[in-house]
């Protein structure tokens, strides 16, 4: 009987994977539901004996089984999109059944935790520091230093909090990781628990990810005996983008309004319920098992400058070959867009937004920027959570600048004035510019300065990135033609 492997990831399901799986079963095949390889333009991507077929619709199933399908993409592992990647965090993508403990253990799972159990807490944090791993949520803070701060903080109770509130448009790596390889995140959290002396961890997942919530809940139950006495609880957000900000998230977990807290105190000193707390993004924690299993140096050997290791880049938006592309830091933006095959519409690429709704828009003249925290900062941008959203030449950058303010206004927690009021006034002023007021732009620039330096968190402070990059790099879109 033919064994057919089909992803059960939310994206594949949204593209019809469940219906395709049922059809294969009706025709007598044995179906195994696995994680997604991350080649989204091919989803649902069906694998038979290592050969991929995609995108497969219900009507294509018979042809695929009969062997006469023109949907074949050859051996999936040899596909250039996969073969050119360096997958450390996503090593299991496409290869294992997400909730199979057997598959996880057979592919090197729990090795990092085993090694950590034989180490002192201090040695674990030193290993993480030596790896050069930086926070993958966007801020890029060295993970080992954060852990060491929590380890040495005074407190009877300490917590590990996983930030899975992946709200940035153009990002889906957290979702894919939780849906495709949930045990690696659990292992990473358990190692963090050993490192800092925490007995409890929370995974805070946004409510827009119901599939990820179900997978993580099931995985936490299955893995509970393996990580005990460390305990993990899954919590669901409630549709507030700002809860991706770490202190908002902590307030939300405590059952409060998701308002930002002023820092200091840092969460490492006074975090969840006032206790020392490690709060890390999904991808940061999921990188940990590799670092512990293979050693810090193995991870640090990848990357450039102060950006060590790999980044799961997410190629999204109007892109021909969109999906998950994990690669060592240092690849240029242009190389990444090239891998993505340019725009899906076939029209010229006009702009790419890197790092979510708070990231800058880059024009083609800056596509030589290497993927590296410092290189992006030097060009008034940020890599954020690694989302790359491509726009073709039909995009109106004045409308995008307006949207950036509009989004900030809708999602502002309201705690600080520059963000709460600035976003509303910014949208109004951009609208005046669009209506033909030439003095508006200077006002927008001034307002952006205030927001950048006066806001409590990244929502207000980084909204100027998309706005000012649109104005700086695409000035023609802000000029209103003379009306006669």
């Amino acid at each position: 009987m033919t064994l057919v492997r089909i992803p059960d990831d939310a994206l594949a399901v949204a593209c019809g994977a469940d219906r395709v799986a049922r059809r294969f079963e009706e025709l007598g095949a044995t179906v195994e539901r696995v994680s997604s390889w991350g080649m989204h333009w091919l989803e649902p991507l069906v694998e038979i004996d290592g050969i991929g077929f995609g995108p497969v619709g219900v009507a294509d199933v018979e042809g695929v089984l009969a062997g006469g399908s023109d949907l074949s993409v050859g051996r999936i592992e040899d596909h250039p999109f996969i073969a050119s990647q360096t997958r450390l965090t996503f090593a299991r993508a496409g290869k294992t059944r997400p909730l199979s403990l057997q598959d996880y253990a057979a592919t090197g799972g729990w090795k990092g935790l085993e090694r950590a159990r034989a180490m002192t807490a201090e040695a674990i944090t030193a290993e993480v520091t030596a790896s050069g791993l930086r926070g993958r949520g966007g801020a890029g803070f060295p993970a080992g230093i954060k852990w060491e701060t929590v380890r040495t903080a005074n407190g009877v109770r300490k917590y590990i909090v996983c930030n899975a509130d992946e709200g940035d448009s153009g990002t889906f790596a957290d979702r894919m990781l939780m849906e495709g390889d949930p045990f690696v995140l659990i292992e990473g959290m358990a190692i963090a628990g050993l490192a800092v002396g925490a007995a409890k961890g929370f995974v805070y997942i946004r409510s827009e990810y119901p599939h990820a919530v179900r997978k993580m809940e099931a995985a936490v139950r299955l893995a509970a005996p393996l990580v005990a006495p460390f305990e993990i609880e899954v919590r669901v957000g409630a549709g507030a983008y700002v809860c991706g900000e770490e202190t908002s998230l902590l307030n939300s977990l405590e059952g409060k309004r998701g308002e930002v807290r002023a820092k200091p105190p840092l969460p490492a000193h006074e975090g969840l319920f006032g206790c020392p707390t490690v709060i890390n993004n999904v991808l940061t924690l999921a990188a940990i098992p590799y670092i512990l299993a293979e050693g810090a140096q193995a991870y640090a050997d990848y990357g450039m400058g102060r950006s060590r290791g790999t980044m799961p880049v997410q190629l999204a938006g109007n892109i021909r070959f969109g999906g998950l592309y994990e690669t060592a830091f240092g690849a240029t933006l242009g190389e990444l867009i090239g891998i993505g095959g340019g725009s899906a519409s076939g029209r010229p690429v006009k702009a790419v937004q890197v790092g979510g709704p708070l990231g800058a828009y880059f024009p083609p003249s800056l596509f030589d920027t290497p993927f590296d925290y410092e290189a992006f900062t030097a060009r008034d941008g940020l890599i954020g959570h690694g989302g790359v959203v491509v726009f073709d030449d039909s995009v109106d950058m004045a409308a995008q600048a307006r949207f950036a303010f509009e989004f900030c206004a809708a999602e502002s927690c309201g705690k600080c004035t520059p963000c709460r009021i600035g976003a509303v006034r910014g949208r109004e002023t951009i609208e005046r510019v669009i209506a033909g007021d030439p003095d508006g732009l200077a006002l927008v620039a001034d307002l952006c300065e205030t927001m950048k330096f006066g806001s409590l968190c990244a929502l207000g402070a980084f909204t100027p990135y998309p706005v000012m990059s649109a104005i700086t790099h695409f000035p023609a879109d802000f000029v209103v033609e003379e009306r006669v």
Partner: protein
Amino acid sequence: MELDEIVARHIGREGPLLPILHDVQAAAGFVSEEAIRDIAQALNLSRAEVSGVVSFYHDFRRTPDPRPAIRLCRAEACQARGSEALAAHAERVAGERVRVGTVYCLGLCTVGPNAMVGDELHARLDEGAVSALIGAM
């Protein structure tokens, strides 16, 4: 499910308010004034504190809306794939019968425009697909 059952299920957890509100919202379709009062009493919070939390989060409604609902993603990656024109089309097709809401990102940013109906996800939408989805609701 009754409110006291919901409260009893979560009250032993650390920070029980959001899990309770999620269950109330799921069971009733909104969080009523009475529910806010009872939850506040059970958790030893003021009504203002619970109201403040309910009003902060987009997922919680203060008033019922029995209409079926579809949520379209209108974040940047879907914008780059034509979600704005599609949203206008959805509004026209839906009229007053179906509630067309907005969601900022479903994490399917390579296959947009996308939408969510309940917990069900729909990708690669065009005008025909949206009309069919709304028509079937």
